[in-house]
């Protein structure tokens, strides 16, 4: 059983005990522990259940590659599922719960799947659950769904905050091991702006751990010394930034790197954001990301107590934790001997080292023998005994089929199948890999590197990440590769005489299955992907059934699709696949490496954009007044506009009616500030607007206004509004609220990219002005009380504008009407909008003046038969459909959209045309309803002959009114159409003139 050793542990501080809970049980650990090391120290070998068979699982690794030891961390607003115990730093009060079991970790009903495993091979669900059909939805799928998932679901709104940071560096070094440190120091000394990031809380990586076992030295000093020395050097360089607990999540095009900095995960009480997502632009990236050890594939290699040899070593050396008292070491390379030595030095027993290589190991093997450890070459593990805990192993010949030679009792197994460089970041942006036959792994093919915006190489692998596996080679490679990256940035490298002395290792030997001739029984128990329960037999089945592409096999078996994304399983899996297909591994190739390297929080991705800062919320100068006066808001793009202003006890509909009645009978106010306002000035301004609008603008007289339509080059109506001519050379174009930015951009696009020789300047002055529509029979009276200027119909007739002083504020007054009433749109500088608004309310009090919202605006324009962009138009409607021929200039031989409107379908007389619709019973037509025609089309769909584009209850007429587009509509006045609802009812409506109110337009013209 695992336990805490009385001495040792280079990363823990035994003077700082910490307490935490696991599944509610109080446990103890030390500062510097990971949750995994603390659990092992507490004898908690079993840490989770596998995904498919719910098999008992213990920790197998000691870092980011851990597939088994996943826990739910924290509680309430701080709960997070699927946290790796191996990368979770212990803090006082930490609370963790194991996952994917019911009722308990020790006794899990789901483990029945394990009994039936033989009936659940890879892809079994593609072959079953099909009959009877209803059973899939009713029975099978619910079962499949309920058994799905790993971690528990967070319940509360996230209590933490997150942020981003845009970082710019010449060179970014990923990985704080020996290679990364060497690279960063070289770059720092070359005077470059450098960022060095390390995903763990410690510098130095594996080298110090290995040295603790084999006594390797650098420059005749302990490896730890070199680490300290370089870290100290870097601290003195202002041009170098170093970050612990920061992982490079992904490398993207043009030197873009995502840095995931975990600020308070290890200290939840600390102030500030929890995570910071760095968006980094790097001239060069050095990936010193090290390597990951591979498991060996033998029967029972997933039983708690079976661990990677390197992890076993880490727990002993770094945390003073022993995974077991009797540790069998099984390997195909020399490195695992370091583990045996470390175990022995810790005073624990190594009953045997099982070396699959016939010739065995080199110097390290000798060192192990010298310590009295029994070493057997050409041997293998046939089977591991035990259920929730290793109890022993059967030894056999690697060459054979698993005939047992000897049984050995043990409580832990340390395995090593060789090492694979971490090539993820290299591969994210297109870096290619090459197969290294000698070391049986893929490493970066530096001749096929990721290319940046200038086509230059921008990622350079260094050290173990580049396939250099022994200390001396690692140091040499790091210097060499860092030099290349620095040179690419025009820097020069001062040679660093770093000499390492470490025991020589003899070559490893690929071992993909143990024993070599293992039969089906054993292969069905030899795990490749621990979390997803993918076994050697599953990959072989996929190959047998023709899922030959590595992508097919991955998807068919789910190999490598778990939360560790195959960090442990991919190479072993595709070796088995290649063997099954009888082709060399490089021909099989790898699956695609995708970001992130390990999962990153959604919160960090969103950053500060939540709550008030989620999205810009645009406010008019009178926004606060609307808020204080109980406006019911309608989001219009990023603006908020009052929909209506309900009073106590009033429904929205009642409020809208009140606002309309008041406005039609006396006077109302509308905050129209959101309407777009664009200045167009220059000798060619008229000519330009003639191209932009369908009607003629160049003939407009200064002081006058004209309503205009804009179409896209594809012929469709995109915007409308009133244009006022300010002077000979200057026009002010009003656009819809949604159009302010887009229409201004539209204008600039044509000016800059098509008519660049035309003398026209534009300026978007939308936000310079607060605009208030004063509407109703009493509008003039109200305004006149605030102004000495003459506002009479003579001096300011309909469709004219003039500059006046209102309530002491210089204002532009436009006599335009979107309601059919006498109406003045008053524009004043935004800073004085509120003042004018209040003055108008005051001046109009005697007339019962009140503000009205967008809904009243919509109803009143509908009563007048005015179209609304976005209601009558939807991106498929042309002006002709709306009977707006009068606004299509015949004199102009060109305007944007004119050619498009000549295409056969747009000139088709059978296009639906705008009409008014009046229900026979006075009710309101359902919004969006279609008018049905006779019969069905060839796809069996009911034929239609029209649709409702806007529909309202008109308080003025006290009946439902609507507008719609109807086949030959204008020629069918009086005809009755049927509009089926979605509830089975049918509304009948008569085709009428769309102008329902004041047909002769007398009211707006007074």
């Amino acid at each position, binding site marked *: 059983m695992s336990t805490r050793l009385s001495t040792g542990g280079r990363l823990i501080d035994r003077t700082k005990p910490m307490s935490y809970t696991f599944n509610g049980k109080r446990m103890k650990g030390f500062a510097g522990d990971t949750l995994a090391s603390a659990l092992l120290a507490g004898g908690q070998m079993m840490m989770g259940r596998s995904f498919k068979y719910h098999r008992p699982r213990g920790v197998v690794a000691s870092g980011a590659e851990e597939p088994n030891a996943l826990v739910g961390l924290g509680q309430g607003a701080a709960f997070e599922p699927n946290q790796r115990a191996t990368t979770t730093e212990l803090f006082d009060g930490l609370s963790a719960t194991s996952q994917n079991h019911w009722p308990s970790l020790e006794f899990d009903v789901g483990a029945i799947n394990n009994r039936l495993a033989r009936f659940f091979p890879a892809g079994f669900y593609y072959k079953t659950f099909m009959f009877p059909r209803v059973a899939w939805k009713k029975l099978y799928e619910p079962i499949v769904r309920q058994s799905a998932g790993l971690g528990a679901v967070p319940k509360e709104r996230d209590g933490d905050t997150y942020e*981003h940071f845009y970082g710019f560096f010449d060179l970014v070094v990923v990985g704080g091991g020996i290679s990364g440190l060497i690279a960063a120091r070289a770059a720092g000394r070359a005077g470059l702006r450098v960022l060095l990031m390390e995903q763990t809380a410690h510098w130095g990586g594996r080298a110090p751990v290995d040295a603790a076992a084999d006594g390797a030295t650098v420059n005749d000093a302990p490896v730890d010394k070199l680490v300290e020395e370089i870290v100290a050097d870097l601290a003195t360089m202002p041009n170098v930034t170093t970050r612990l607990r920061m992982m490079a999540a992904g490398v993207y095009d043009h030197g873009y790197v995502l840095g995931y900095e975990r600020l308070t995960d290890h200290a939840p009480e600390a102030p500030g954001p929890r995570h910071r997502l760095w968006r980094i632009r790097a001239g060069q990236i050095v990936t010193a990301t090290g390597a990951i050890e591979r498991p060996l594939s033998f029967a029972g290699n997933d039983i708690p107590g079976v661990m990677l040899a390197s992890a076993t070593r880490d727990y002993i050396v770094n945390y003073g934790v022993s995974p077991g008292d009797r540790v069998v070491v099984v390997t195909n390379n020399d490195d695992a001997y370091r583990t045996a030595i470390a175990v022995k030095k810790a005073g624990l027993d190594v009953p045997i080292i099982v070396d699959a290589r016939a010739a065995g190991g080199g110097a390290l093997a000798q060192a192990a023998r010298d310590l009295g450890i029994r070493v057997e070459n050409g041997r293998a593990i046939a089977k591991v005994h035990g259920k929730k805990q290793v109890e022993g192993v059967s030894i056999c010949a690697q060459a054979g089929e698993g005939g047992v030679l000897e049984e050995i009792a043990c409580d832990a197994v340390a395995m090593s199948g060789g090492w694979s460089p971490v090539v993820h970041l290299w591969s994210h942006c297109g870096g290619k890999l090459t197969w290294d036959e000698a070391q049986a792994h893929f490493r970066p093919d530096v001749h096929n590197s990721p290319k940046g915006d200038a086509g230059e190489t921008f990622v350079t692998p260094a050290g173990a990440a580049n396939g250099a596996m022994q200390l001396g080679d690692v140091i040499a490679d790091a210097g060499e590769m860092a030099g290349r990256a620095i040179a690419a940035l025009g820097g020069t490298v001062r040679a660093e005489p770093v000499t390492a002395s470490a025991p020589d290792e003899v070559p490893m030997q690929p071992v993909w299955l143990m024993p070599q001739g293992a039969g089906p029984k054993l292969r069905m128990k030899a795990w490749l992907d621990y979390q997803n329960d993918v076994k050697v037999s599953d990959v072989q089945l996929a190959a047998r059934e023709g899922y030959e592409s590595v992508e097919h096999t991955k998807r068919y078996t789910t190999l490598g699709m778990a939360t560790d994304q195959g960090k442990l399983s991919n190479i072993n899996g595709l070796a088995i696949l290649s063997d099954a297909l009888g082709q060399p591994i490089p021909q099989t190739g790898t699956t695609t490496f995708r970001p992130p390297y390990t999962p990153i929080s959604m919160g960090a991705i969103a950053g500060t954009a939540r709550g008030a800062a989620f999205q810009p919320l645009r406010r008019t100068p009178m926004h606060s007044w609307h808020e204080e006066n109980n406006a019911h808001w309608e989001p219009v793009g990023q603006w908020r506009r009052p929909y209506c202003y309900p009073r106590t006890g009033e429904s929205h509909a009642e409020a809208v009616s009140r606002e309309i009645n008041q406005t039609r009978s006396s006077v109302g106010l509308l905050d129209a500030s959101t309407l777009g306002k664009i200045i167009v000035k220059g000798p060619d301004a008229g000519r330009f607007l003639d191209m932009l609008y369908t009607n003629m603008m160049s003939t407009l007289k200064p002081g006058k206004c004209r309503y205009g339509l804009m179409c896209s080059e594809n012929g469709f109506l995109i915007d409308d509004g009133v244009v006022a001519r300010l002077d000979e050379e200057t026009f002010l174009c009003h656009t819809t609220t949604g159009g302010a930015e887009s229409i201004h951009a539209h204008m600039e696009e044509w000016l800059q990219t098509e008519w660049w020789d035309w003398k026209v300047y534009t300026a978007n002055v939308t*936000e310079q002005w607060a605009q208030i529509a004063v509407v109703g029979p009493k509008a003039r009276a109200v305004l006149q009380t605030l102004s000495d200027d003459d506002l009479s119909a003579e001096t300011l007739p309909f469709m004219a504008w003039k500059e006046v002083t209102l309530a002491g504020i210089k204002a532009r007054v436009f006599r335009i009407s979107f309601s059919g009433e006498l109406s003045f749109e008053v524009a004043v500088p935004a800073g004085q909008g509120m003042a004018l608004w209040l003055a108008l309310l005051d001046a109009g009090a005697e007339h019962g003046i009140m503000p009205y919202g967008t809904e009243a605006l919509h109803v009143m324009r509908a009563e007048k038969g005015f179209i609304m962009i976005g209601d009558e138009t939807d991106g498929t409607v042309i002006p002709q459909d709306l009977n707006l021929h009068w606004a299509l200039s015949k004199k102009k031989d060109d305007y944007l959209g004119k050619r498009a409107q000549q295409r056969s379908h747009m000139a088709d007389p059978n296009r639906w045309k705008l009409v008014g619709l009046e229900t026979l019973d006075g009710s309101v037509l359902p919004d969006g309803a279609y008018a049905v025609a006779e019969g069905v089309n060839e796809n069996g769909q009911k034929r239609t002959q029209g649709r409702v584009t806007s529909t309202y209850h008109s308080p003025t007429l006290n009946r439902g009114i609507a507008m719609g587009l109807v086949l030959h509509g204008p020629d069918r006045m009086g005809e009755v159409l049927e509009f089926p609802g979605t509830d089975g009812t049918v509304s009948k409506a008569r085709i009428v003139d769309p102008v329902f109110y004041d047909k002769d337009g007398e009211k707006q013209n007074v």
Partner: protein
Amino acid sequence: MSEPQSALTGTTCDGIAKIREVGLQGMITLRGDLSATEIASAIADATGCALPALREITHEGRNSVSWMSPDEVMVFVPYDEAEATAAKLESALTQVHALVVNVSDARAMFELEGPNAREVLGKLCPVDLSPDSFGQGIIRRTRLAQVPAAFWMTSDASFRVVCFRSVAQYVFDTLKIAAQPGSEVGLYTQANG
């Protein structure tokens, strides 16, 4: 004549940097052929400022002129002088094709002050704000979180940030979160300890 109001009427907030809405500020958009001598002299006469070169901002007393685009500059003068200055520019440019508009009410201006000011802005804008890349005299138009914005430095540790008036509250809220206590990045500050 009522008192004009700036977007946030001078709201302030303290975090790892000080945030303050500056209040009323006169701003005039001037578009034209910036190589035309009339423009340079009109600006000099009206503000005393030199015509700014590419991506630069020039200052003279309470006035500033910043480059905005190849055919546009922004003139900053005290709010109550904007109308007159605009008129002055207008009349000086009658002979050339140019556009002069008083847009003093269309925008909001913030001051961001303190040793961490660079980092606070660096959390929201995709711009290299390290001292050796960005300093006084430069204007940068870019994206601040989700809205367009422009900024320049008025000292080694303070910025002026300009955005549209309607999003002033959003920009303030966003800056406030970016400046929350305990969120120092320690990147641009490490050099000066």
